C-alpha cells in the first residue's frame, strides 16, 4: 500500500494553462509538504501544511495555490503555467512536522511547452 501517492506522474501542458497535482498520504501524519526539484536538482520546499493549516509558504509565485481539504490530502494548483515551472514536484508528509523524517511521493514531472 503506497504511503504517499501523487497523481499524475507526468504532466505535459502548454504555457498559460491551469493544472493541478493531487497528493494523498495514508500514514496518519499531521504535516504535508510540496517540494520542487528544478533542472539543477535543487530540492526546495514550497509549502507545508499542518492539520490543514498553512505553516510554510516559501517565496512561491501566487500562481501556485495549495489546498488541503483534510490532513491526508494536499493538492497543488498552478495557474497560468510558465516555461520555468517545468520541474519535478514532490509531495511529502511527516509525523509532526518538527524534525520527524519526511516521506516522499514518487514525484510529478511537469513539462510546460
Amino acid at each position, binding site marked *: 500500500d503506497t504511503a504517499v501517492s501523487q497523481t499524475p506522474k507526468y504532466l505535459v501542458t502548454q504555457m498559460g494553462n491551469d493544472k493541478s497535482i493531487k497528493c494523498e498520504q495514508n500514514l496518519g501524519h499531521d504535516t504535508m509538504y510540496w517540494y520542487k526539484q528544478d533542472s*539543477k536538482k535543487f*530540492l526546495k*520546499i514550497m509549502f507545508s501544511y*499542518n492539520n490543514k493549516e498553512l505553516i510554510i509558504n516559501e517565496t512561491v509565485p501566487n500562481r501556485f495555490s495549495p489546498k488541503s481539504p483534510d490532513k491526508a490530502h494536499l493538492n497543488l494548483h498552478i495557474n497560468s503555467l510558465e516555461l520555468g515551472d517545468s520541474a519535478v514536484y514532490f509531495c511529502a508528509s511527516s509525523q509532526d512536522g*518538527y524534525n520527524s523524517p*519526511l*516521506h516522499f511521493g514518487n*514525484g510529478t514531472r511537469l513539462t510546460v511547452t
Partner: protein
Amino acid sequence: DQQVKQNSPSLSVQEGRISILNCDYTNSMFDYFLWYKKYPAEGPTFLISISSIKDKNEDGRFTVFLNKSAKHLSLHIVPSQPGDSAVYFCAASVLGYQKVTFGTGTKLQVIP
C-alpha cells in the same frame, strides 16, 4: 544562497569497499541533519539522521559523522553494495522548525 552543499556530484566505488559521501553547511543554526537516498523515478527515502548533540550515529552499514566546528557531515556506507547505487541527499534543519534544506545530491555508483 545554498546553505547545504554537496560538492561531489558523483562517486564510484567498488562493491565491498567503503563509500564516503560528504556534505557542508553554512548556517550555524542548523542542529539536525538527515540523509536521504533516491532511486530514479522515485521520491527520496529517509536513511539516517543525527542531531548536533552527537558526533556519530550508526544504523547497520550506514554511519553519519558530524563535525560541528567544521560544519561538515559525512555518510559512510560499509560495505558498499550494488543496491546502494542511488542519489544521496544531505539535508539540514533547525530543531523545532519544519523547514528542511536539502543539498543537490551525490550520485553513488557501486560497481560489482
